[in-house]
């Protein structure tokens, strides 16, 4: 039991009403940038808890938040690549939707070229000069005239500007425009220099691989997966890497969020379990499975996990807390069946006794002590 914080557990047979009617799967909506991670967590959540795998919909940060705030029922969670704005919070409050925010990690935008082509380091200002619609010239905002890279900085290669990047309504696009925002507004070029690839980063990679002089803008997870074929351009002199993004040094990086609905939480312990899985060391730890998918953990991951555990305590005075068991199941090589169920009587650490974790093992039809 040890660092699990000792939770007083007593066994109860699983014939209870909780499992007679399987809970509907969780529904999570939002950003395509968090989608790859949320879905992976959903699968591990399913294997560990034997709850149905949550349904994850990638509809964009803005649309996701709108749907999330629309009613107290609706989606159980929202995944976003930026925090809620004040307006969105107000909308949520008007509908009586309560939620809790979990920062789950960090993602970075990477400027890519084909491996073997000429690389150069650029600043955010250079990037703005390359893709912003309007630029300040002679104290006026004028259409961006740059057509080749060396028009921006003389030491850049003399090749035409061709940049593939995210399309509006994606969180990635929001972050990009936010990061390079100049005095002349947020919009990006529409004259064919900046080409939008709607929510398809593989397409951007294909384009970049086929033409050596094009530059693509993709998220770090995609870059990580195709590292052997791609070259990352340093921004402000900093190459995108695991450590530079985690430290917040790399300028084109952003945090990713999971928002979970608190309305009626006492009947939705699986919401808390999902957040716990998302923030667990198993997922975002040093060798977690999300790290392999390109998510960069935050230094404050432990605190976030503790908060998730707190949410579970609120939501589960009397639920089958199977999640707590999962590390033991692997450790002891127990059979992963839906028949291992536990009942948590109380989650207060004061009352906990670490020697009483017992489970009902249906395969051998008896209870046994786990520790």
């Amino acid at each position, binding site marked *: 039991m040890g660092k699990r914080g000792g939770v007083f557990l007593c066994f109860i047979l699983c014939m209870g009403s909780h499992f007679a009617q399987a809970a509907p799967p969780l529904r999570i909506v939002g950003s395509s940038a968090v989608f790859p991670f949320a879905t992976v967590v959903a699968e591990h959540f*399913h*294997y560990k808890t034997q709850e149905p795998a949550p*349904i994850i919909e*990638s509809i964009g940060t803005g649309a996701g938040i709108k749907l999330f705030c629309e009613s107290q029922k609706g989606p159980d969670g929202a995944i976003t690549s930026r925090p809620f704005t004040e307006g969105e919070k107000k909308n949520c409050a008007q509908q009586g939707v309560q939620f809790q925010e979990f920062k789950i990690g960090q993602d970075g935008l990477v400027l890519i070229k084909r491996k073997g082509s000429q690389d150069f380091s650029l600043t955010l200002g250079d990037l703005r000069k390359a893709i912003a619609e309007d630029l300040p010239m002679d104290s006026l905002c004028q259409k961006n005239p740059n057509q080749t890279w060396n028009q921006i900085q003389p030491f850049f290669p003399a090749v035409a500007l061709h940049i593939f990047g995210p399309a509006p309504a994606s969180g990635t696009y929001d972050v990009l425009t936010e990061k390079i925002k100049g005095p002349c507004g947020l919009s990006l070029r529409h004259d064919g220099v900046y080409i939008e690839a709607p929510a398809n980063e*593989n397409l951007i990679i294909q384009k970049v691989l086929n033409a050596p002089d094009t530059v693509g803008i993709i998220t770090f997870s995609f870059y990580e997966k195709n590292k*052997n074929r791609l070259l990352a351009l340093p921004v402000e002199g900093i190459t995108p890497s695991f450590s530079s993004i985690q430290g917040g040094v790399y300028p084109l990086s952003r945090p990713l969020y999971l928002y979970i609905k608190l309305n009626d939480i006492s009947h939705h312990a699986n919401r808390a379990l999902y957040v716990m899985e998302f923030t667990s060391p198993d997922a975002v730890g040093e060798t977690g499975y999300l790290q392999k998918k390109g998510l960069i953990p935050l230094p404050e991951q432990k605190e976030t996990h503790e908060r998730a555990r707190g949410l579970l305590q609120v939501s589960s005075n009397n639920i089958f807390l199977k999640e707590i068991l999962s590390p033991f199941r692997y450790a002891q090589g127990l059979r992963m069946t839906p028949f291992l169920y536990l009942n948590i009587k109380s989650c207060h650490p004061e009352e906990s006794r670490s020697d009483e974790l017992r489970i009902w093992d249906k395969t051998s039809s008896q209870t046994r002590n786990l520790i």
Partner: protein
Amino acid sequence: MKKTLRKRHRREKYFKSLGLASLCLALLFLGTIFGNILITGIPAFFRTEILAKAAPSDFLNPHAKYALDEEKKWMTASDEVDMYYKNDETGNLTPEQVKTIQSLEAHDQIRLTFNGAFLTHSDSREPEVAGIWGGLLGSLLTLIVTFLTAFPLGIGAAIYLEEFAPKNRLVHLIEANVNNLAAVPSILFGLLGLVAFIHFMGFPRPSALVGGLTLGLMSLPVVIVTTRASLAAVPYALKEAAMGLGAMPLQVLFHHVIPAALPGIVTGIILSLARALGETAPLLMIGMVAFIATPPSSILDPTTVLPVQIFNWSRSPEMGFVENTSGAILVLLFVLVLLNSIAITIRKKFELQNVL
């Protein structure tokens, strides 16, 4: 005289070769696309397995730890090992890992087997364990709803319009509109489905029911048009002969006209179902793009369909999904060919019956 004849022959030859050339070009395109899909897709039906005892844990698929006790001898390897073993793509493997794979290979502890899980598993974010079962089942359920919507409504409307409707302005207007609807882009039917079934009627969102009804609406005009065409093609003499023998209009219809028109009707329906099976756009509109790892058990359950799953896979970053995408396309093509051959068989059968 001879001169002009030669000229005419030459012209004929020229025209023939032009036709042959265009046919060859079309076949070339088809062959390239299909060959490409086949080459990339075939590896999806094979997967790399490692002897469980010998495998380092980071060589196994990420879900393997949940089944460690199942005493399986061989376990599915991770995506990266799979890619290396099949295509020699090093990916993110370190040189030491590559060496380990080579030593596994030398000891016969790694092998390639038929990937049955590709057909029996549902969607997953790990390409090595992902399968198409959920999507296939979803497509099937959706198709059943589509059939139940389009078949009775379409046939009924077509019979009424062709046989009973008075020939006035209103009916002409309706006919023109039905013909136009058959050519409306499918995404508009998605919009209609979104408003009618989800916002207005409040059906559960990514379910086979909504998807099927939407695709049903989409197939309806096509079913009406083809049914009407095959009804109209029944010779008038047949009807007159039946009526001359004292048959009631309804008897004429059900005993003579419909059996004669049946091959055409059935072909029309199956072809429109085949189109509905491959349709993605309207389903994206009604939100059937979700990641759903559990196969549906009823038409109200959250569902994804095969084309949408292919679309989702094509957007995934893992390299293993490239072959999975092509593999799923192959399965979809196979189902489509199956449906079309059923259509042909049925038509042949009914045509034969009518002759006898």
